[in-house]
């Protein structure tokens, strides 16, 4: 029993990280239709920047926001330098550009930081809390709380703010959005900035538990993308649920079967879900008029 509880705790912790990454995917997808494969690099930028600053003696409550801002700036640069000039290109080209950007960022990170594995202390220390026979790292609570906060923020932002509604309209029909006066370029810019900030935040929160190095972005992006597909592309609730579900499946498989199979079992579940519900768990099904 306490064993199961322990697996659930670690599954939710990892799942919350995937969920945060998936929420970043969702935001950019919602604004532009682009699946941003550089999303994982923002997680690394967040983690590496925080690690470097903390290593240089900067207190964590200053280092963490700075790392998020660093991620956000790189997100804006990615949009300005790589996506915007090719805005009229087909979506597939834009998606390939994000893959290229992720390779570039990985190389840049190696040069700016190093190839070492990094971690820093949890925000509330590393002494585990004991709950019903399971141990919980205080940082896990930060991670789960952070993901839920990001989810709540996005759900509110996209529906209740002028800028958020502009992003939604831009995603749904860019031409119609422009012709009612929405600055679609600005909406895309904002979505890249926010999405990068969310990715960096995930990195900052996760690094004490998962560690980070310049090359973990690919795996992070893959997991976050899987969570997005599972939950339903474009749905914030789906991103949250998809992330947690994949984290739980991985943890349970690793715990009861073998950690060799944890990735495989997650992908089998995704395939099954997509066979039965191609739009994902929470995705809306729209039949295009022809």
């Amino acid at each position, binding site marked *: 029993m306490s064993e199961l509880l322990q697996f659930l705790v670690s599954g939710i912790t990892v799942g919350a990280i995937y969920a945060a990454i998936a929420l970043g995917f969702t935001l950019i997808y919602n604004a532009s239709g682009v699946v941003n494969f550089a999303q994982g690099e923002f997680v690394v930028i967040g983690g590496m920047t925080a690690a470097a600053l903390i290593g240089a003696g900067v207190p964590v409550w200053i280092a963490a926001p700075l790392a998020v801002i660093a991620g956000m700036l790189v997100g804006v640069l990615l949009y300005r330098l790589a996506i915007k000039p090719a805005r009229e290109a087909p979506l597939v080209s834009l998606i390939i550009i994000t893959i290229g950007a992720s390779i570039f960022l990985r190389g840049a990170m190696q040069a700016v930081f190093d190839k070492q594995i990094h971690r820093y202390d949890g925000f509330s220390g590393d002494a585990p809390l004991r709950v019903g026979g399971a141990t919980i790292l205080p940082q896990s609570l930060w991670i789960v709380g952070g993901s839920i906060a990001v989810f709540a923020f996005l759900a509110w932002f996209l529906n209740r703010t002028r800028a958020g509604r502009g992003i939604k309209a831009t995603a*749904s029909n860019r031409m119609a959005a422009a012709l009612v006066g929405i600055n679609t370029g600005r909406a895309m810019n904002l979505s890249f900035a926010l999405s990068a900030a969310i990715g960096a935040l995930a990195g900052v929160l996760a690094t004490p538990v998962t560690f980070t190095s310049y090359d973990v972005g690919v795996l992070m992006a893959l997991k976050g993308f899987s969570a997005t597909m599972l939950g339903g592309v474009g749905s914030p609730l789906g991103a949250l649920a998809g992330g947690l579900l994949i984290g739980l499946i991985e943890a349970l498989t690793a715990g009861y079967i073998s950690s060799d199979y944890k990735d495989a079992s997650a992908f089998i579940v995704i395939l099954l879900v997509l066979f039965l519900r191609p739009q994902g768990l929470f995705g809306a099904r729209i039949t295009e008029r022809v």
Partner: protein
Amino acid sequence: MSLDIDGIGIAFGGIKAVDDVSFTARPGEVTSIIGPNGAGKTTLFNLVSGVYRASAGRVRIDGQDVTGLPGHALARRGMARTFQNLQVFPQMSALDNVMTGCHMQEKSNLLADLLGLASAHRETARSRDAAMAALQRAGLAELAHRPASEMSYGQLKRLEIARALVTGCTILLLDEPAAGCNAVETREVDDLIHAIAAEGKTVVLIEHDMRMVMRISSHIVVLDQGRKIAEGGPEEIRNNPHVIAAYLGAHGAAEAEAAAHV
């Protein structure tokens, strides 16, 4: 505000879809663009509203050159339009679709929204009221919470008009607003357009329904193969032999004649 089109043109692969077209649309009037299929009417709208970049000519709003401005900048200068092939936000409800049109009227910035200021809430409430009123006007009030993807073609046409209206536009371009509407709905659209012009807006209308065109237009521009072949009042156009030959034909002329007497 008056809309001046001066010698505008564009070619696709060597074919001049719109060629040296000029006219002026005045406030408080309905200016109609008519012509056979493929004459270049929709392309003309695309040039004027910044969807396509003109290869020749100028567009002016009240004398100010707006040629080549992006769509959102034109919207800020008071131009709104609807689309022949429908450009709605399918995932959103009718009300949310129309509320996007309020974007420019809303002043609150991201910071006010983020801080949850009361002013931001009031703004949203105001937009919702304005959108609801516009839906009412377009005869769609009962469908406010229906997703746009589930509405009929004729309803979506009117949804686009409602969305254009809440932008606070002074120039309204309507591309076949009555297509897909039944006779009763057509009459409603007809009255709605008439009322919009009567408010002092500049309305430019593309329409194949000759009864409607003859009834509500002050001024008619006839296009054929990208060129303007005639221009004038309904009476003049109805009796113009070039227009009858190129577009109205015997049947159309009779229909237009009938419209003049209802």
